[in-house]
């Protein structure tokens, strides 16, 4: 007699709804038979029997909600020696490779590209009176941004692996194929170097491609076209050949996908003149900045975060919400220490700030939003107030975003610093698979708190 357990579809799933039983007590099942359907907030999946035997008892009724993973859901009278419990999840209408965590987790510039900085100080658009805010996931905010820009400009189109029929590997392009058709929402073969080049070529004629990489790890196949063809062509052509193109997709470490699938490329792209690089944290910025990126006449690298896709934030409804590229945002004010972060690290920094506040240290959290061009004015202004700097990034420290931010602060606010800047980064190793090593390797709220206290000499 073995128990069939509620399976998890992803490492982060904790509970789900038992939507349907396909078997009843007394039924004989064999391995591979679909015995039940399970739902989470974003997916349904079929549960397959992994052993043969007779269902002796159904323990959790159809329709039961919030069934915890690993709860026995049925009992199987198997043959002697049959293998142990549990059922295997077969499939889910969620992300293909893995699911982002169910729980919300909280999210640069160059130098010379002065020409891209307008004379007017950059500001987020004012919200007109009467505008309402809606809770929107990052996933949908990105989709809405693309849809709105595609409606507005027939030259905008999307291409990438699984973006059309599969609705996006992480479901970011859900519904776009249905609305815009296969001419404008294009499934490519697995040929990153090739289709990135095709995108740049099309952009050379004035089209405005959005090239999705299933993740930025795979954009390494295509980085030559991004840098040598997209970033440099305007300059090499003496200003003749513009490439208005967006390269977008999830960047950084997801959950337990190990070294080849877990890398933060922010500093790689932010190193390159000719590129603009964006890494938003919340949904309003994801939407507003993606719309700005699509309209921008330059190549833009737009770094999303898989662990944020499912998180909801307020987004203004019913207006053309465009957030200016190149402007950082102070997400929390404080005068004890400046914490500079981007993308998912903003969320960790905000949590760290709460803990620090409870201990009497008021942190100011600066969300970079754009890495290139970097809004150093906002950073420097904050450090002049706090006298202390902590940078947080998911990538490796050497030659990284924090190194550059710290250098800017030393150059421009040296006399205001009361302590050497501190950097919180991924440990200087390829990301390990083992759960404990992975946790040790990545930045955490605790590491940010410790760094902030260290620079405040607490």
């Amino acid at each position, binding site marked *: 007699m073995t128990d069939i357990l509620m399976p998890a579809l992803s490492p982060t799933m904790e509970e789900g709804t038992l939507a349907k039983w396909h078997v009843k007590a007394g039924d004989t099942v064999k391995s591979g038979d679909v015995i039940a359907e399970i739902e989470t907030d974003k997916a349904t999946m079929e549960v397959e029997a992994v052993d043969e035997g007779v269902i002796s008892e159904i323990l959790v009724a159809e329709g039961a909600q919030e069934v915890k993973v690993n709860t026995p859901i049925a009992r199987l009278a198997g043959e002697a020696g049959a293998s142990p419990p549990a059922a295997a999840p077969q499939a889910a209408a969620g992300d293909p*490779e893995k699911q982002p965590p169910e729980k919300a987790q909280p999210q640069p510039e160059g130098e010379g590209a002065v020409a891209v900085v307008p004379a007017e100080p950059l500001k987020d658009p004012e919200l007109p009176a009467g505008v309402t805010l809606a809770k929107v996931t990052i996933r949908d905010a990105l989709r809405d941004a693309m849809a709105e820009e595609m409606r507005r400009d027939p030259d905008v189109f999307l291409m990438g692996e699984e973006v059309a029929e599969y609705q996006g590997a992480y479901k970011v392009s859900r519904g776009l194929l249905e609305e815009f058709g296969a001419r404008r929402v294009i499934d490519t073969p697995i040929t990153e170097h090739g289709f990135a080049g095709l995108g740049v070529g099309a952009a050379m004629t004035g089209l405005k491609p959005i090239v999705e990489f299933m993740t930025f790890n795979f954009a390494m196949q295509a980085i030559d076209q991004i840098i040598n063809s997209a970033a440099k062509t305007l300059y090499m052509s003496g200003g003749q050949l513009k490439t208005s193109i967006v390269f977008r997709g999830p960047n950084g470490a997801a959950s337990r996908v190990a070294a080849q699938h877990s890398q933060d490329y922010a500093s790689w792209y932010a190193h390159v003149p000719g590129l603009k690089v964006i890494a938003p944290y919340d949904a309003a910025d994801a939407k507003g900045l993606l719309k700005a990126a699509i309209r921008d006449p330059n190549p833009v690298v737009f770094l999303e975060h898989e662990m944020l896709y499912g998180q909801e934030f307020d987004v203004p409804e019913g207006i053309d919400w465009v957030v200016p590229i190149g402007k950082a945002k102070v997400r929390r004010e404080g005068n004890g220490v400046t914490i500079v972060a981007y993308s998912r690290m903003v969320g960790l920094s905000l949590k760290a700030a709460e803990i620090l506040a409870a201990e009497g240290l008021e942190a100011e959290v600066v969300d970079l939003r754009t890495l290139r061009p970097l809004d150093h004015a906002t950073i420097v202004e904050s450090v002049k107030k706090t006298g202390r700097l902590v940078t947080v990034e998911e990538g490796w420290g050497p030659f990284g975003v924090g190194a550059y931010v710290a250098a800017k602060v030393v150059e421009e606010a040296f006399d205001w610093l009361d302590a050497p800047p501190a950097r919180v980064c991924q*440990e200087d190793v390829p990301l390990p698979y083992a759960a404990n090593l992975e946790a040790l390797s990545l930045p955490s709220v605790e590491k940010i708190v410790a760094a902030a206290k260290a620079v405040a000499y607490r």
Partner: protein
Amino acid sequence: MARGQTGEVARRKPNGDGRFAADKDELLRFYREMLMIRRFEERAGQLYGMGLIGGFCHLYIGQEAIAVGVEAVREPGDQIITGYRDHGHMLACGMDPKEVMAELTGRIGGSSRGKGGSMHMFSMEAGFYGGHGIVGAQVSLGTGLALANKYRGDGRVSFTYFGDGAANQGQVYESFNMAELWSLPAIYVIENNQYAMGTSVERSSALVELSKRGASFNIPGEQVDGMDVLAVRDAARKAAEHARSGKGPYILEMKTYRYRGHSMSDPAKYRTREEVDEVRKTRDPIDHVEELLEKHGWADAAGLKEIDAEVKRIVADAAEFARTSPEPDPSELYTDVYTEVRA
């Protein structure tokens, strides 16, 4: 074959033309090895469901005949390399199920000491060069293994496995060209399971007969029923002889099918349940060998059950080991980044 039609290669009857002959011991071994992969993968699916395996987990169920059939012709020193759907190849080439399963759970007893995970495993002892997470990368690497073999003149060949989706990566063709140009002993085994994630071969490939993908480089290729372990073995033998005798690379397009989703969380809405069931019912590689064994009178139901029980025991032991092997010591985080340079 007309475009858009990847229809199966009809199952040829064993012992018909002599090419598919197998003796009792070999057939029983194939049965056991394929069953081992299947049971192992079923258990890996369970452990994933229980949260013991994280990240991506790509199961090999349905494709067992390929890794097992090719392994039968591998000679000592020949190398193997593949992508992330790698558990089957590792078991076929003789790695201990315990160290494979423990790598899946990220424990110190794993073949990469828990640091690589499902997609990144290696065993120099078994001649297994990975386990690679980037689609297509293994094709250049495998060609490099062949280059080394030729350089050393040691008579070894390399077997490079990749999927139908990977077959569209540019570096595959850069590799093909060099392999033929320099007559490298490379055997390319394309595991055409008809889908790359949610994209069928028809939707990704201008030429769906992947065995012909080497034509413009003059590389011979053939389609093989990848659900028939004997057909796989014989095709692999022919390809290996070609490569070993200095004639250069060879392409084998294995027509196969994956029963499960691309990875554990694939809803697989791009194909019907009926399509999957049809293959399981009519083309299953293990059922096929079972039929042959019974037909020849080499095994009866009781005998096969005994094998199944033994395989299940080994898999259960592996799962238990993978569950109880400790996590790596925190100090492991910083080791293996560089090879130490000794004075």
